[in-house]
């Protein structure tokens, strides 16, 4: 999602007696990360901050927490959700939240106009404007006025 590469995170399950398996996992992880090379935290600082803020956001945490309930027991209307449907919604929310935070990070870096933000993070102008409107409502950013007829924003 953040261009960091999900290959940098590995998940594994093993039991206490599976020492051999631990070694195998450890070698696989080593190989995989080794091939990807060192991770440059400075280069990805903006993305990391945005990802962190996304994961901290209430919407995302709430949705992730509800997964088991929605899938197995149903929502407040008693409907059980399909796993695929849940994941699609989660992906959607994640992307949207992440993009919002990315925009906010860009503003913090000093890219205050829609075009400057686009140049920094590469999203479509229309989508950025749309999200900015949304972000204004939830007090993530504020409209600061016009500079040379271009609207500029500030992070809150």
């Amino acid at each position, binding site marked *: 999602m953040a261009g960091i590469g999900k290959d940098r995170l590995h998940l594994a399950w093993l039991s206490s007696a599976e020492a051999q*398996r631990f070694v195998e996992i450890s070698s696989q992880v080593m190989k995989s990360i080794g091939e990807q090379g060192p991770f440059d935290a400075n280069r990805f600082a903006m993305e990391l901050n945005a990802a962190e803020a996304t994961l901290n956001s209430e919407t995302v945490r709430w949705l992730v927490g509800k997964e*088991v309930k929605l899938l197995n027991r149903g929502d407040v209307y008693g409907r059980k959700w399909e796993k695929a449907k849940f994941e699609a919604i989660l992906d959607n929310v994640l992307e949207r939240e992440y993009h919002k935070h990315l925009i906010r990070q860009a503003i913090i870096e000093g890219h205050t106009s829609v075009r400057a933000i686009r140049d920094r993070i590469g999203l479509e102008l229309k989508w950025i404007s749309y999200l900015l409107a949304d972000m204004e409502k939830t007090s993530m950013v504020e409209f600061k006025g016009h500079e040379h007829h271009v609207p500029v924003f500030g992070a809150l």
Partner: protein
Amino acid sequence: MITLSKVTSITGEEGNFTVTVKKYPRYVDMDACIACGTCAEKCPAKVVDEFNEGLAKRKAIYVPYAQAVPLKYAIDRDNCIYFQKGRCRACEKFCPTKAIRFDDVETDITLQVGSVILTAGFTPFNPAKFDNYQHARFPNVVTSMEFERILSAGGPFAGHVKRLSDGVEPKKIAWLQCVGSRDMNRCDNPYCSSVCCMYAIKESVIAKEHLGKDFQPTIFYMDMRTHGKDFEKYYDRAREEGVRFIRSRVHTITEVDASGTLNLAYVSDTGKRVEEEFDMVVLSVGMEPAQSGIDAANILGIELNPYRFVKTADTSPVSTSRKGIYVAGSLQGCKDIPQSVVEASAAACQASVSLSSARGTLVRDKIFPAELHVAADTPRIGVFVCNCGINIGGIADVPAVAAYAKTLPHVAYVEEDLFACSQDTQEKMVDVIKKEKLNRIVVAACTPRTHEPLFQETIRNAGLNAYLFEMANIRNQCTWVHSQEKDKATAKAKDLVRMAISRASLLEPIPDLSVPVSKTALVIGGGIAGMTAALSLANQGFSATIVEKSGILGGAALDVLHTWKGEDVPSYLNDLIRDVSANSNITVLLNAEVIDASGFVGNFETKVRRNDSIQTILHGATIIATGGKAARVDEYGYGKNPRITRWHDLENNPEMLADANSVVFIQCVGSRDENRPYCSRICCTTSMMQAIAIREKSPDTSVFILYRDIRTFGERELLYKKARELGVVFIQYSLDKKPVVTETPDGLLVDVFDPVLQQPLQIQADLVNLATAIESAPNEDIAGFYKLPLNAEKFFMEAHAKLRPVDFASDGIFVCGLAHYPKPIDESIAQAMAAAGRAATVLSKTAISVSPLVSKVDTGKCIGCGLCAEVCPFGAIILEDADGKGYRAKNISASCKGCGLCAASCPQKAIEMLHFKDEQILAAVCAAGR
């Protein structure tokens, strides 16, 4: 714990035995040995490794396996070069702690005990003496125990399945069942070993996991006996996954060629002789009572049965012929792990009953000095870097690690130790902590999993809270696994120490957590299980309340006349009801129903409704014994014709047999099908007993038993044998060719396909008796009140199918009897005693200390969304109506296991895990990177 020992004599009686125990020399000082393994590395004597069933070698100085307890080496005198030839002593020379004691001698220890529990177990049947199995001659014929070791990741081949002849991966393996069981001709073990069918299926499924899709496992069997809880579903799944099951006994095994491939000859179910090649054969060997157990039984003077298992009665399944001596596990009869664990707790309970007046007289609590208040002080961290002899010091540069630690923030004191865990270092550590006024301690050594408790005790002796302690694992996870890269190991050790110090600086003292215990139990259900549990607790001095839905005590056992050993159930039941009713510690509530419950271990609150009045009962433990019942069925014309009965109709109305000349039993009615994919466990034995009774009383009555697999497990197999000898006719049927019962004016006609004759049969029957399934009581409400899981068939699901068969994941609640799974009376009684025994571990305490590493809700941040309560697997968080503020989450610390799911999922970050707070974990994470 005394290892390497045997009982040699016993005198005295229940409550006061004097036992002599002979302790054989270990030749290693247990206090000095640090299990570093140097001795075994240097030992020149290679010995056959019995733990790996002879498939690998070990040294003459050894630990049996890597996770052994105690993890201390021992010298095997018979194979030690020094003991046999007088020279060597290599281990002594290289031992870093001077732990070798060649002058160690046999000692006799005298113990004064109130009772004795014998659990010496079984020996796997040794097939070597029978040439038809070719175990001794062909390398690719192995026993199931050997195959377990082959499969094991810790075994001789590190979990790679291969043939012993040439190391090639097998493509086809055959399992041969009943080797050393159900066989009078060759091995004199007429009983069924009960466990082999299940382990053969398990081995075949796991082998398939190891060997992939193309691997073809085949199991040759007589009857598939998957009678345990959820076993049948496992059997079904194995068939779906491609395990082939053939009902036949292989009669000849030959080697095809020099590679060791084997040819098996058998007769197929259609009567044809078949030959087939396999790469390997696994002999599913049965169980025999261990010789050491038989010896011990003889010394203890207790009676054995004809098969040399310890003799017990169905109504007192763990009591031996000598008062005060109990038996549990496979020495009492063949059984699987959960049943052994049940009996273990049952025997503990029985011993406890007879000794309850002496409870607590020989154990005492350790007292620690008062804790200093250091929470607010600036951290002064003491770092102790252990060399562990040469285990750490020989690889990582310990002085460099120690010097590096000195440069880190908050570190006030650093020292290097040869062995941080040794007694003298521990004493020194206490002095140093006091002298240097240290308030956080880091030990860089082995693993916290084995040594954290020891060091925590040490710092408590110095007046510090146990949780102001952190370990850096620089041995198990560093020097031991990076011994070839000394520089990198040193670098990693520094990182790990830095992480530990960084975390330690943020650690906070956590007070001990304990909850008071209400010393009374609530037993739900007044059948044999419930009554036995209540009585077992009452006889130990605890009070118990039985809540029974119906108007009488007795439950499902009211329909039963005899146990499988022939003991009289009605008179036993009468005695039990009388004892329960007369016991002043027991309150019986009939026509009563649980309508709500709350609370946690030690402090449950249950609402009971009885005759329109509601009372609240406070109790420390809960025993679920809600029972089960015979299923109602509409199959085979039941209910339409009075001559078609269920088994207990027949049991209670023997006059129905008076004029019957031909009786047909149909097994598995409502069991092992789509609706109830489980075996009801007791029906084969019940039909066997009823059939025997009929033939014994009127030898002219024809008796037919139509079955799918006969499941007379354990010594019940002898009933099957007796029924056959008495001329009962057994006809096997399969699920797709079920028998058909039709009414005719002359009586009943039963059509069935006979697989031996390969043709349909028609039997004229005067009476058709259906062996109907046992199903669970409606358990949903109770499960909901106490937040307990049910399996798909609505039986209660225990905490662990093998190791915790009477517990639930939630503490203080236990299950027994038919509420858990269909079972015979002896097993219900054992499980009820076990539940009482487990409940006694709670009730015997005035307060229970629970791990204080629990979650803590910040009610200021909490918004009452309930996600935490949702995700908690232990019901340890509830929503509570905080006055005027709406709902807020509330911790029930006594139930919390500290997993942290709630903290990770709280959208408000309002939950912290004590000792694993976000900032404490992050401190370590951040320190890892630099």
